């Protein structure tokens, strides 16, 4: 009940006109970024970070949450109307959304997507609000040994993430780990690999690195593309309400509940994120359906499954972010940057020291979901117009904003230059078919891993003593299991491929 009363208090305190206005604006900007292919939710949060400087910590974080929620949900608009997923989370939405739009049911498809995005996020936020404080209580008792175990487990998720081409995926992550070694070593402060550049003493700053990898690389990738077909004209027929009946709504509820559970569960695991949860939930819905043959031809069930799950991932992903300070994907990594610039450190102590900020975030999540519903419902025509802004105008403006954002973090021009370096790395990753998410995950977790390992060794003297901590043993075992399982799966898949090639 304590959680409930704190939540109510937070609702009251964030319901000021200025904060509501900022959240509404954040959701709207997020939706725009989400809906334009090539611009992602992470990019939107990156660009909003410097704008939150002058705000109070709570207000700033709430605005970022708004952008995050809008950004994940916005992908459905272009997925349905243009057959181009605005974000990776909405890939599976195109499977049924676009066929529906072609049949002239575009508005109905959008209606399903919007309503179930909303329900998915609300479900996950309820889970977040009631579980995160409990988990934080447990996490408070963690010693460096447990934290090391969790970081190790989070790193092994890179292997799962990279399935299909595991060697490349893991190597992609290794570069992220290597980048964390630059600068002063934890504990003793020995400088490593700085090549005489004194700006590198503090290591690569997180924010410029992420902005470079996510945003600057997109501009180079865009520049390289030969011009493709133009965006076609989009017809929207007006419908009443959201375009579906109460009966249809009730029929979708079991599907929605299952998808919300999948989404939240996937969200909690670090490194997997919205794109996987959307796909997984789509496939599950198809397998469980009584009429699987309709999937892919314009079946609302597919939209409901994907959109519920990808929005439910948000609440799930916020759990490790807030409780342990471990980001699960690109967007939560940027959110972690938001905590940093406000002088907060995400982790169990946040629940003790800055409970107002934490519950403010919970309340903001709920309010922003409602904004998302309203803004997407009434603003759909406006967003369709935005999709027509040519990218050759948009991309340079974004680059300038990236530079300004990187500069504003520390007032160092060096940070601006380093976003270009990481932009080039991101571009090369794209060219060589290396995934960027492992890089980001390893880059963020790598320094934590080393710090916890060395701090733990100071405390326990030997590594063997780590095994006296049961929670460490559990996570260590899971980590080993995950690695073994992914390797086995990879070997099996490559054998199957070979035998198929022989035939």
């Amino acid at each position, binding site marked *: 009940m304590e959680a409930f009363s704190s939540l109510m208090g937070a609702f009251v305190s964030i319901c000021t006109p200025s904060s509501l206005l900022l959240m509404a604006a954040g959701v709207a900007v997020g939706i725009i970024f989400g809906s334009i292919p090539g611009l992602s939710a992470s990019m939107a949060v990156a660009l909003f970070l410097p704008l939150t400087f002058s705000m109070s910590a709570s207000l700033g974080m709430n605005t970022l949450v708004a952008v995050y929620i809008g950004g994940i949900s916005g992908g459905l608009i272009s997925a349905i109307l243009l057959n181009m997923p605005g974000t990776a989370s909405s890939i599976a939405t195109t499977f049924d959304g676009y066929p529906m739009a072609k049949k002239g049911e575009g508005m109905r498809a959008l209606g399903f997507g919007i309503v179930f995005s909303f329900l998915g996020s609300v479900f996950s936020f309820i889970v977040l609000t009631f579980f995160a404080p409990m988990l934080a209580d447990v996490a408070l008792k963690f010693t460096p040994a447990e934290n090391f175990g969790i970081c190790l487990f989070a790193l092994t998720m890179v292997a799962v993430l990279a399935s299909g081409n595991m060697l490349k995926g893991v190597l992609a992550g290794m570069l992220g780990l290597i980048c964390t*070694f630059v600068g002063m070593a934890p504990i003793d402060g020995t400088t490593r690999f700085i090549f005489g550049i004194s700006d590198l003493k503090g290591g690569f700053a997180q924010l410029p690195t992420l902005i470079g990898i996510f945003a600057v690389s997109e501009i180079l990738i865009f520049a*390289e593309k030969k011009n493709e077909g133009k965006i076609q004209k989009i017809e929207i027929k007006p419908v009443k309400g959201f375009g579906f009946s109460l009966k249809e709504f009730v029929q979708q509820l079991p599907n929605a509940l299952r998808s919300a559970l999948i989404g939240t569960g996937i969200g909690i695991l670090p490194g997997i994120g919205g794109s996987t949860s959307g796909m997984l939930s789509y496939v599950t819905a198809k397998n469980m359906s009584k009429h699987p043959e309709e999937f892919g031809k314009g079946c609302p069930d597919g939209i409901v499954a994907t959109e519920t799950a990808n929005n439910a991932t948000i609440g799930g992903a916020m759990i490790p972010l807030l409780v342990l300070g471990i980001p699960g994907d690109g967007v939560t990594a940027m959110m972690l940057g938001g905590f940093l610039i406000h002088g907060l450190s995400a982790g169990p102590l946040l629940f003790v020291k800055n409970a107002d900020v934490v519950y403010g975030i919970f309340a903001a999540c709920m309010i922003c979901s409602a904004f998302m519903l309203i803004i997407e419902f009434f603003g759909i025509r406006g967003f369709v117009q935005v999709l027509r802004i040519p990218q050759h105008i948009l991309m340079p403006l974004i680059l*300038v904003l990236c*530079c300004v954002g990187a500069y*504003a973090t520390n007032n160092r021009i060096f940070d601006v230059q380093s976003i270009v370096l990481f932009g080039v790395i991101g571009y090369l990753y794209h060219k*060589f078919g290396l995934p960027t998410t492992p890089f980001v995950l390893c880059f963020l977790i790598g320094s934590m891993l080393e710090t916890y*390992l060395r701090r733990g060794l100071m405390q326990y003297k030997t590594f063997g003593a780590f095994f006296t901590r049961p929670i460490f043993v559990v996570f260590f075992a899971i980590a080993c299991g995950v690695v073994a399982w992914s390797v086995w799966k990879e070997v099996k898949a490559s054998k199957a491929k070979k035998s198929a090639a022989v035939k």
Partner: protein
Amino acid sequence: MFFKKYGDIVISVFFMALSAVMIYAATLLPKSKVMEIGPDFMPTVVGIATLILSTALLIISLKNLKTRIAEVDANPPADSDYKRMLISLILILVYVFALKPMGFIVTTLVYLPIQMYVLADAEHRTRKDIIVLLVIDVIFTIAVFFLFRYGFKIVLPQGIFTINL
């Protein structure tokens, strides 16, 4: 084409070289006096792991090179406009290095229209389009500068062109 065919080999050689250099550089780091593992421990571990993984990737991709080339030749990837990418990269580099000495307003005013023109396709390079670009350029640059100056109290690099309002 090149990236698709030989990309994996290039990556593995790059990572092998990088990890070898890192393992060597780690041996030069001072050892810790207070505990068993010092600042050299993690770089060495990660370096060895990277070396093993990249060697494995090299072996596998050399083994599969023939099938890989055949696969790529069967469905060639879309052509890439490297000239436009390189011009954009050079523009961005010039922009970030000129930002401090020249100041935000001047560099951005110059950078934006050139970059937009480079990225635009042939149909969007008429006189009318260029005027639109210039108008967007001026409004955007001034708006961002003042938004940060007065809205967020962050002074962007002023360079040669100072505004004191």
